[in-house]
């Protein structure tokens, strides 16, 4: 371990390369983040705890999208549809058999895994543009499908989801939700970090860089692409199921194009391929609308826009995505890395290796 907590350049064991907490710096900030996450609900008001809960659900969904787009390099425009599939799995199980959360969450994961294989099959043949179009088609097919189901079962009005109970305790308040969602989000983060440092992650990243070369290295490209789709969609459906329980109401209108754009904004602004970046992106995208509406109330120039704050939000998302794509493709994670190295290396300016 070298000075100032930089990861050591001298590595004597492959195990050093895959360590999760590889330096004092990372250990310190991971502990700080955990501490802040634990204190947060005690400080925040009920409304902002609700926002924090939305962030935690978004983290799970965005990590799933990042797995597909950032790690494996497969573009997916069907994400909102997959979230809808998860939410409607919960709604259907509750409407028909009144299933408890211990059944619905795993069921959503299984539905997602199967759906991922179905959508992933065309991805074995399609790339880039055509993959984008076919996943977008999947989005529309799912939305139309669940829309039909909704109008057939609930006469079009949507499904009310009762508050779930875990071990006999009903999760009603936002604060209770926070302590349920936090471990789930942390679990999703750990799961993704572990995937990245295992053979799966290396295979996926190899496919992202060049699938022909990956094939030549002995990676079963078809299998790993399907695995990526399946794992991503499964995790997305879990996020959708959590969303359904937390919102307590499922209706197809919530899963339109806007939701897809929000998730795309999270992974792009956060930084494609980075777990930390995806989490930062989720915070940014979920919190930003609330900040804009607060600003719109306070600042005289913006308050003139009045009812347009929603349009303003959409525009700010678009502008932020464009700026990040053009000027900082590594996203918030890239900015964080730059700031971090600036302080770690000070007074020196450059480091001699790429980490």
């Amino acid at each position: 371990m070298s000075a100032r907590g930089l990861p050591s350049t001298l590595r004597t064991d492959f195990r050093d390369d895959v360590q999760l907490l590889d330096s004092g710096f990372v250990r310190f900030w991971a502990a700080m983040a955990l501490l802040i996450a634990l204190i947060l609900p005690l400080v925040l008001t009920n409304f902002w705890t609700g926002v924090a809960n939305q962030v935690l659900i978004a983290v799970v969904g965005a990590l799933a999208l990042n797995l597909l787009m950032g790690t494996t390099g497969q573009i997916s425009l069907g994400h909102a549809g997959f979230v809808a599939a998860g939410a409607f799995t919960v709604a259907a199980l509750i409407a028909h058999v009144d299933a408890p959360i211990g059944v619905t969450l795993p069921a959503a994961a299984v539905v997602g895994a199967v759906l991922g294989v179905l959508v992933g099959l065309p991805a074995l043949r399609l790339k880039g543009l055509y993959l984008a179009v076919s996943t977008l088609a999947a989005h529309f097919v799912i939305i139309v499908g669940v829309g039909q189901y909704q109008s057939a079962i609930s006469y079009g009005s949507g499904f009310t989801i009762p508050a779930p109970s875990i071990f006999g305790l009903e999760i009603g308040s936002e604060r209770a939700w926070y302590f349920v969602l936090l471990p789930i989000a942390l679990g999703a983060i750990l799961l993704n970090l572990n995937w990245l440092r295992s053979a799966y992650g290396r295979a996926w990243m190899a496919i992202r860089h060049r699938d022909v070369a990956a094939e030549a290295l002995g990676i079963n490209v078809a299998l790993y692409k399907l695995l990526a789709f399946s794992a991503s969609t499964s995790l997305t459906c879990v996020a959708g199921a959590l969303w359904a329980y937390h919102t307590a109401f499922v209706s197809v209108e919530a899963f339109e194009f806007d939701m897809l754009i929000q998730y795309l904004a999270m992974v792009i602004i956060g930084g494609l391929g980075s777990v930390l970046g995806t989490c930062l992106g989720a915070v940014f995208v979920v919190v930003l609308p609330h900040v804009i509406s607060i600003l719109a109330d306070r600042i005289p120039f913006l308050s003139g826009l009045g009812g347009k704050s929603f349009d303003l939000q959409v525009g700010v998302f678009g502008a932020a995505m464009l700026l990040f794509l053009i000027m900082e493709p590594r996203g918030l994670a890239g900015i964080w890395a730059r700031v971090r190295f600036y302080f770690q290396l000070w007074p020196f300016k450059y480091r001699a290796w790429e980490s």
Partner: protein
Amino acid sequence: MNLLVVILIQASFYALLGMGYVLIYRATRVLNLAHGDLMVFGAYLFFQALAMSGGSLPLAIVAAALGAALLGALVYLGVMRPLASYPVAVGVLATIALGLVLRTIVTLIWSAQTRYPAELLGRSGRPIALFAGVSVSLIDTLIIAAAIAAIVGFPLLLRLSTVGIEMRGVAENAVLAAQRGINIHRINAMSWAAATVMAAVAGIFFSIKSRLGPDIWYVGLAGFAPALIGGMDSLRGVLIGAVIVAAAEVLAALYIAPQVALAAPFLVLLVALWIRPWGIFGSREELERI
């Protein structure tokens, strides 16, 4: 007979939109998901010019075309040029973001209120009765003329003019073209400008025939169906794609239900992607089998 004319008008509309997709795809290898918003923007420029000029159709069309050309070139230089070296997916995502920004600008300038530019036009928007119960309005004739001009004129331009030959060169192999001294960014900016003008003309047509609002972008989005069916890099493919999509849409509206007509372009597209994913005249480079 009237049915054929209706299909022809609709096909002209789709041909103009689809050619925009093809031009942009050939220039920058990007499926431009902001095309619908470029269309809306052009239509609003037309509406603004129409209101300012007191209902003069030619003046408004020229002003909107000039504005659209400028917008297209700016979009290329500001957004697509910096992303030139990135994977295709990044470009597609950038056009989604661009669409959001354009939509917000439109809403902030002109508000989300639905407008009817036809009201400003007065008499010139009324249908003219032709033979055998066929009636065509001035704007219908204009859209057909514009589509024919684009379909006939553009391949000629590509074949005969220096700019056209340079455009083909850039579409074929941008690196080689650059090494032969062609300013590829100027050429690509011109492609984007031409595509945006075509989108604006389609938008003008739609806003006069129907209505104008920021939400009509999805009509422009439907234009990628003819482009994909015909083949993303083929100008003549667009013509056939446009006729197929227009026929499907008009016939679905007539014989099944108007709601089905909205989804018709995408349904046809799905079937086409199933059978012939690279389009009727498209090249097969994008596809691969593992």
